[in-house]
């Protein structure tokens, strides 16, 4: 995608980079420059290997597929976070029944394979919804969103509970002795500290849900994995098959690695405080 913009003037910055700026030394920048230089060389001499020509024609379709994956992961995470915060709050409630129910919810959906949950929501829900006299279609990708939101919510509930319980109980007592109400302690003292602690594991979960969206291809959603399979079968060349699957790996890596890096940076900053 980036090479599309840089294609015409590809070789000039590569020479400038040779001057030895600090950014040049970063391995990712180095790899990107090398790839750009290669593409520029191929474009200039007209010797692009056939597999790469095919990849170039299939790239828009692959990126559209990736967009579907990202949509699914974002929606699943939004739903999962909302439901998870609710379940997490229930697991801290003073009522025993609610605590036990929340505990079971978390246990069941954390210990179930994500693939099985995706099958579950795909096959158990109907393909249309009837509400009074209207009929709504219930497409597969929404079912996958629900299937991923279930484990996401169980994990968010656990992250939330862990964060709340990591706040020393002395703070509750101190706040109580200063005549704060329970809701005030929660809102003004505990929650602000929790949010910071919850962010790194939540981002980890987001990366893991993004990776799980690859399972959508198994239940017939046209995502990036499905597109890659179609491309590989349509072109039917050994070198293209190798290329397209490793491109797939690269696309997911490009989505998830920055999140992992950001998570680690946040954790390091959190450690210092």
């Amino acid at each position, binding site marked *: 995608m980036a090479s599309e913009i840089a294609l015409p003037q590809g070789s000039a910055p590569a020479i400038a980079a040779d001057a030895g700026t600090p950014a040049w030394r970063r391995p990712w920048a180095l790899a990107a420059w090398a790839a750009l230089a290669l593409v520029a060389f191929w474009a200039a001499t007209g010797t692009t290997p056939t597999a790469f020509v095919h990849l170039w024609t299939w790239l828009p379709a692959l990126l559209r597929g990736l967009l579907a994956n990202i949509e699914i992961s974002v929606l699943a995470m939004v739903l999962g976070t909302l439901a998870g915060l609710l379940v997490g709050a229930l697991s801290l409630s003073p009522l025993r029944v609610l605590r036990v129910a929340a505990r079971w919810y978390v246990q069941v959906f954390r210990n179930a*394979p994500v693939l099985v949950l995706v099958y579950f929501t795909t*096959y158990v829900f109907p393909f249309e919804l009837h509400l009074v006299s209207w009929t709504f279609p219930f497409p597969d990708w929404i079912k996958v969103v629900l299937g991923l939101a279930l484990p996401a919510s169980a994990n968010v509930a656990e992250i939330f509970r862990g964060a709340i319980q990591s706040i020393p109980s002395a703070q509750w007592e101190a706040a109580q002795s200063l005549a704060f109400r329970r809701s005030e302690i929660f809102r003004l003292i505990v929650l602000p500290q929790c949010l910071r602690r919850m962010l790194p594991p939540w981002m980890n979960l987001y990366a893991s849900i993004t990776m799980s969206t690859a*399972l959508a291809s198994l239940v017939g959603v046209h995502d990036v994995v499905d597109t890659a399979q179609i491309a590989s079968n349509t072109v039917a060349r050994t070198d293209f098959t190798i290329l397209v699957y490793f491109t797939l790996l690269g696309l997911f890596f490009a989505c998830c690695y920055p999140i992992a890096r950001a998570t680690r940076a946040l954790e390091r900053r959190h450690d210092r405080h």
Partner: protein
Amino acid sequence: MSEALLAQAVAALKTVGLNYAFVLDLGERSAFLRGLGVTLQLCLLTIPASLAAGVLIASALTSGRAWLVQPARAFVEVTRNTPTLVQLYCAFLVLNMLITQHVKLPGGNPLTPFVWVVIVVSLHKGVFHAEALRAGIEAVPRVTLEAARSLGFSQRQLLWRVELPLALRFALPALVNNLVDLVKMTAVASAIAVGDVTYESIMIWTQRDNVLELLLLILVFFGLLTWLVSLVGRWLEERLRMSGYGQ
């Protein structure tokens, strides 16, 4: 006799709206049981294989030699940040294809889909084990190592008698967590038509339309397996507990 008991159980479940009639069909029942067996086999093979891979990767990561550390680091990052399914496809649809094309053995390609699942899941979880072990090794207090050195432990003794036992104890909870994940991950085998419990269930429910019933069975089965793994983990933690280290 047991058939009659089974029929009674099926009839009883029918009254609450669950259609388990497939267990009365000999072929489907044996297919489902075979699926349970295959999943169990997958778990029993991948658990030791992933631990071995984890130890190898962890030793590469902590070796301190740049030519070992950097490839290991890159492998860890790529494996952690890509979906298992895509890795499985890269291995089974790409590497397996290349092997089939280039290796001319009398019996054809010896690597079955089952073997590929074991390899990919082991390597994938091995990376997570390696991270846990590395964190465990780094958590061993420097003072303890210095104390052992001052008592005249050699480098080798230091590693085997002091550093690794403590590192293992620090890493154990994370390792058990990874193994629970590994058990769940074996479900991905159904994607390349390995006859595990998920795959056999799909075969049954496309015939009978009893998805909910089968999924409940699968969930119970995986719940049982993960519970067993965490039970063994807790037992090990209890056994290996040293006063003064960990809770």
